[in-house]
């Protein structure tokens, strides 16, 4: 099952890559650097999904004390941190030629940086507490509290004056650009979501085996 998910995500990523470079046209105002947008928003989308899963699994853990929910939260947080870090890095790489700067302390970038630091803290907290049950409990609370930053990240572009543009897809009225740009973006969103599911499934399985070996 996990292996099949891996092959499926590899295939989807290959199709996404072909669409980003072979199907999507050269954007008129930004030039080819706009092709970074077929990887940056999917990474940011997966970060949202990952931290929403952490929050949901944490609630389930606090209510039902199921170890599987704790393992899912742990795995999703780890993968989410990875994708958030990559979203920040690819956004920064795109920002340099487009905005003329690698980084600016605008509301979107700052709220994402806070989100990233909070989930790095989540992973560090897991590593520092030896009692597994206590670590799971504390991390579940932190996982829920940290998720409260997500609406702030998403709506920051509306609530404050920011350099970062408003969302292209997740907005009232939907995507307003050309289908030649929309389809490669959608395929890459699906491909990165599959990759996320694969990595989380693999990490959760590994956590189960590790905890079984330690018990």
């Amino acid at each position: 099952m996990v292996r099949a998910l891996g092959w499926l995500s590899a295939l989807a990523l290959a199709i996404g890559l072909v669409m980003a470079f072979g199907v999507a046209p050269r954007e008129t105002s930004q030039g080819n650097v706009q092709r970074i947008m077929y990887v940056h928003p999917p990474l940011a989308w997966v970060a949202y999904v990952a931290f929403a899963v952490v929050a949901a699994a944490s609630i389930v853990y606090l209510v039902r004390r199921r170890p599987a929910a704790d393992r899912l939260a742990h795995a999703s947080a780890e993968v989410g941190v990875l994708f958030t870090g990559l979203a920040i890095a690819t956004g920064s790489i795109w920002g340099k030629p487009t905005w003329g700067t690698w980084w600016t302390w605008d509301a979107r970038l700052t709220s994402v940086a806070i989100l990233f630091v909070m989930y790095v803290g989540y992973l560090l907290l897991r590593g520092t507490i030896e009692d597994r049950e206590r670590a799971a409990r504390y991390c579940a609370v932190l996982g829920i509290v940290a998720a409260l930053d997500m609406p702030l990240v998403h709506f920051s572009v509306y609530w404050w004056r920011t350099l970062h543009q408003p969302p292209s897809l997740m907005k009232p009225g939907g995507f307003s650009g050309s289908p030649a740009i929309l389809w490669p973006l959608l395929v890459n969103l699906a491909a990165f979501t599959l990759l996320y599911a694969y990595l989380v499934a693999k990490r959760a399985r590994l956590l189960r085996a590790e905890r079984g070996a330690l018990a």
Partner: protein
Amino acid sequence: MPDNWSYVAAAYGLTALVLGLYWRHLVRKENELADDQIAERSQKPSRPAHPRPDSTTRGPLQR
């Protein structure tokens, strides 16, 4: 606007590198854990499935 292909290559390259390294890290950990479990199993003394009762508990026909 110039195309800035080096930035495109950097963004895609970094993403591929980081995700590839994380995947490899998971695979390596999985293999290490499997090796440890095999080693642990081979170190345990083997026990017969049906141990013979000692002489004091054997029935008259078993003596």
